[in-house]
């Protein structure tokens, strides 16, 4: 009896061993790959090699033709055979109205090229990063996907999951889109922006007037601005709407308005990430001090509201101002349609960085994946989206400014849009500062700092700056390869 039990146990153990061996073998593909050099200085030449440090994979080799690259708008899509293109994106979650526009674009493209079928799948913003990471891990999924600029898209480029614009687009397509600064790395662009988000401060001028202020004279200095906020508050009106529960309100206030003020160029932020000290950096501390100065002027329930719920306070006429966020044009239009007198302003400067007075902008667009077997067609579709009539239709559908120079800014239909475009061209470009920092600095830095400030749990700017420093030290330790990637990103 004992013998048979032993045998049964032995059989079970043998089965387990076999399964473990199978599991190890199946999961061992990563180890089986050639040893990884430190990306991106010498990235792993696994198959296919990461694009930036190695020759493009054979299937994605740009096909040179006379007079052009043969890519993007120059690619002969009709000759590509039957193609099923998978497009993953966030649709209306990012830009209300864009899904209807994209449906039309897909229909038009498929009509022009009956050999192509495009399947667009919409994902949720909250699961977007893991969706992309999982696809990258398994080398399957979309042919092209939506992405934000900066680290969001470059993280995937550094992991070898996407190909640069230069491998899928004609030089003319790339030249027609000047908004690629945020994703230039290794001399190449890694996202082709489709539209730009801009970040003004949106003002309910009726409430400004109600507070006894002149709605036609926005404050020009920091002192004037805080004095105006105090007067608005004294009139019983909450000056600025903020929702921090999901963290995004803090990011929008920081990256859209405050962080940029000390910045001269993107490398200032990258260098701080690589080896700077957030706790002692004067520029970083300066904006945090201003954040504390603004604290009394936010709605007192900011921590228990999501960003959207905070925005709703402004939309319901309960606050005088709100920091502009993605989709600001549609928010403005809805308010105007409801009879609100809407004005715009820029955060008055308090520091002397070259970005201080500029309106922050950031480009969103598409990347083509490394594993796609239809890179050229994906590139052609990206170029198609940027054609003049399609860019104009995008503006009509969403109110967002198309990133391509194929779109004529003079066609902007509302005074607020014209105002924003004027500001964009006036003081030079300023970008979304959080695009040059790791996600961790957002989630465990900015989200936390704003929430703690509103809860009265941070003593001052120095304590807030220390939170950032603690986060970045942990991040550097956990991500030595990415620190090197940031290093190689300097000067791009």
């Amino acid at each position, binding site marked *: 009896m004992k013998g*048979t039990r032993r*045998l*049964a146990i032995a*059989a079970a153990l043998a*089965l387990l061993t076999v*399964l*473990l061996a*199978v*599991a*190890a073998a199946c*999961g061992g593909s*990563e*180890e089986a790959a*050639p*040893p*990884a050099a430190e*990306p991106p200085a010498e*990235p*792993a030449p*696994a*198959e*296919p*090699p*990461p694009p930036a440090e190695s020759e493009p994979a054979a299937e994605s080799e740009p096909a040179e033709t006379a007079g052009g690259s043969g890519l993007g708008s120059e690619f002969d899509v009709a000759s590509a055979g039957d193609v099923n293109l998978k497009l993953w994106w966030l649709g209306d979650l990012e830009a209300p109205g864009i899904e209807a526009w994209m449906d039309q674009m897909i229909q038009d493209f498929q009509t022009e090229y009956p050999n192509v079928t495009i399947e667009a799948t919409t994902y949720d913003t909250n*699961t977007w*990063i*893991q969706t992309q*990471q999982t696809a*990258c891990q*398994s*080398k399957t999924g979309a042919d092209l996907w939506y992405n934000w600029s900066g680290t969001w898209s470059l993280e995937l480029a550094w*992991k*070898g*999951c996407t190909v640069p614009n230069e491998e899928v687009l004609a030089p003319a397509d790339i030249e027609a889109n000047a908004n690629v600064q945020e994703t230039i790395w290794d001399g190449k662009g890694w996202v082709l922006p489709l539209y730009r988000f801009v970040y003004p401060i949106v003002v309910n001028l009726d409430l400004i007037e109600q507070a006894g202020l002149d709605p036609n004279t926005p404050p020009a200095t920091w002192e004037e601005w805080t004095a105006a906020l105090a007067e608005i508050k004294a009139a019983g009106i909450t000056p600025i709407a903020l929702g921090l*529960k*999901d*963290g995004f309100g803090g990011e929008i206030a920081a990256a859209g308005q405050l962080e940029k003020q000390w910045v001269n160029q993107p490398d200032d932020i990258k260098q701080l990430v690589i080896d700077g000290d957030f706790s002692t950096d004067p520029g970083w501390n300066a904006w945090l001090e201003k954040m504390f100065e603004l604290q009394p002027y936010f709605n007192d*329930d900011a*921590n*228990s*509201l999501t960003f959207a719920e905070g925005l709703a306070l402004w939309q319901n006429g309960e606050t005088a101002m709100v920091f502009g966020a993605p989709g600001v044009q549609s928010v403005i239009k809805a308010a105007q349609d409801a009879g609100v007198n809407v004005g715009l302003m820029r955060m008055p400067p308090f520091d002397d960085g070259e970005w201080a007075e500029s309106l922050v902008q950031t480009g969103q667009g598409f990347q083509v994946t490394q*594993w796609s077997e239809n890179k050229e067609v994906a590139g052609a579709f990206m170029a198609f989206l940027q054609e003049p009539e399609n860019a104009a239709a995008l503006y009509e559908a969403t109110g967002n400014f198309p990133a391509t120079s194929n779109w004529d800014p003079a066609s902007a239909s509302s005074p607020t849009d014209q105002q924003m475009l004027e500001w964009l061209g006036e003081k030079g470009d300023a970008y979304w500062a959080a695009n040059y920092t*790791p*996600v*961790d600095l957002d*989630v*465990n830095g900015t*989200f*936390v*700092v704003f*929430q*703690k400030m*509103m*809860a009265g*749990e941070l003593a001052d700017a120095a304590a807030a700056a220390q939170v950032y420093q603690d986060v970045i030290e*942990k*991040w550097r330790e*956990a*991500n030595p*390869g990415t620190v090197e990637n940031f290093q190689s990103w300097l000067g791009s």
Partner: protein
Amino acid sequence: MPRIPHPAHRDFMRLRIQPWLFCAPLLVGVALVFLWPLVSLFRYSFQRVGSGYIASEFVGFDNFRFIYKDPLFWKAIANNGTLLLCVPILIALSTILATLLFDRVRGWRAYRTFVFLPYIVSIPVVGIVFGYLFQKNGLVNSALGSIGITGPDWLGSSSWAIWTIMAVIVWKELGFGVMVFLARLISVPEDLFEAARIDGAGWWSRLRHVVLPQLAPAILFYAIVETITMLSWVFAYIYVMTAGGPGNSTVVSEYYIYQQTFQNTVIGIGAAAAVTLLAFVSVLILARIWLTRRVEALGV
């Protein structure tokens, strides 16, 4: 001439080996579903995980060292520890409510339904509803305000948020305990209660000397299940109600794993935290098995 197997050998094959062979496909399936992810988890916990194109790198115990010196990880564990306070509260409330329902108070069937209802509502729905109710200017504080009490920022203050979540968890999980205890009480021979009544035992005496001893196995089962829940099954409450905030004050170990793995994409560190959590929970499961055997051995 063909060799005829010995009858004993035939029996052995039929009785001992054959069942395993029949079960083998299912066992393989189950092992692949459960064992493979576990093996991968352990493997990742010792790696700096790459991508489909960048090879992973073996880093020994670095990931574990990282999390053990990360104050946020310990904060997360401490929050799980705080949530463990739900367990005695749940046991006490479940015992009282189950006893009252067992006494068949007027309308007990309706009460039983009401008590159990929260348990079948999905956690995200509960989280969203209570998220609204507990806003600083939400319904709860409006109600308190109407009687002259200024309510706190239930979910927006670091000192209140974890306790508010605890209250919601207790509200949601209570129904399960009541049902488990009630089912146990119904299975107890009526003679015991009858004898206690004849002996003049009051409600409290019956609770202490009859109900509680009879409930012991159910209490033990419920305590262990809820303990495991508080350690590794509260992510949805946190994700929906506070997203770990304000200021990371409600981050629990599951949320920490989520942050590291999916937000910061340091999969190895997330895996190391998951292995640590798994170890904690495994110890509790072993404790449960040991305690159950002890209780059975004592003949309770």
